[in-house]
């Protein structure tokens, strides 16, 4: 994933509502009406969030009859969390090793 796309993904994930939308879509595709019903937010506000998620590649939107269904795209999410995990894991793992070392020192 390019840095630019990572920026978009992290930007999209920085918002609580957008994370909640993704959690909802992880279970099942949904249209904007379903999502508006779920959150205490106006339809235009939800549409705006969906646009941000779509630009980040985190969801795709397909027309089905008169409905436009949002679908979770897992790949960029997995890339982002894999990359995200790196720094935290670096220190988490280093310090866990330091714990062991400290135990073994006199």
């Amino acid at each position, binding site marked *: 994933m390019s840095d630019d796309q*990572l*920026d978009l993904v*992290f930007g999209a*994930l*920085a918002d609580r509502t957008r*994370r909640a939308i*993704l*959690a909802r879509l*992880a*279970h099942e595709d949904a249209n904007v009406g379903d999502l508006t019903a779920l959150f205490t937010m106006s339809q235009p506000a939800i549409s705006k969030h969906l646009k941000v998620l779509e630009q980040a590649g985190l969801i795709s939107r397909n027309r089905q009859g008169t409905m436009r269904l949002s679908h*979770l795209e*897992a790949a960029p*999410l*997995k890339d*982002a*969390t894999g*990359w*995200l*995990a*790196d*720094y*935290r*894991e*670096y*220190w*988490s*793992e*280093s*310090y*866990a*090793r*330091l*714990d*062991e*070392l*400290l*135990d073994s*020192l006199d």
Partner: protein
Amino acid sequence: MNVTDTLTIETPGAHAITISREFDAPVDKVFRAMTDPELIARWMGPKYLTNTEIVNDARHGGTWKLVQRDPDGNEYAFRGVFHGEQTPELSMRTFEWLGMPGHVSFETLRLVDLGNGRTRADNVSVFTSQEDRDGMATSMESGVIEGYERLDEILEAL
């Protein structure tokens, strides 16, 4: 993630990263493990990285260097200079990843005695631009960390 892990990573302001962690050992022991090159080699970095070179000349103006090698043979080298004598209360140094030369940050490390033989290590890194900081820390921004646990749930549900 280990529930007893007291690691916290934050990004106050636009140019800083802070990392704090508690250890079940007294200050002098933690200080020794963080300054003796032979001991540093035994814990710095995840297990898949091998520490191939460690220099820690903890005098004013002394240099430090760390070279880590991954299983594919790629090497990651970091270096910098100490400012003032390195003590448990305060150690100050510059930090530069040679993969991105010229993007130098300044780091302080303070070991705080928590009593009962416990110590907290407080690291602060300050970068000269928000871009440099974010390059190092995008993943550590609090909003993202908060999202991280949520994401685990999402990924599990896939």
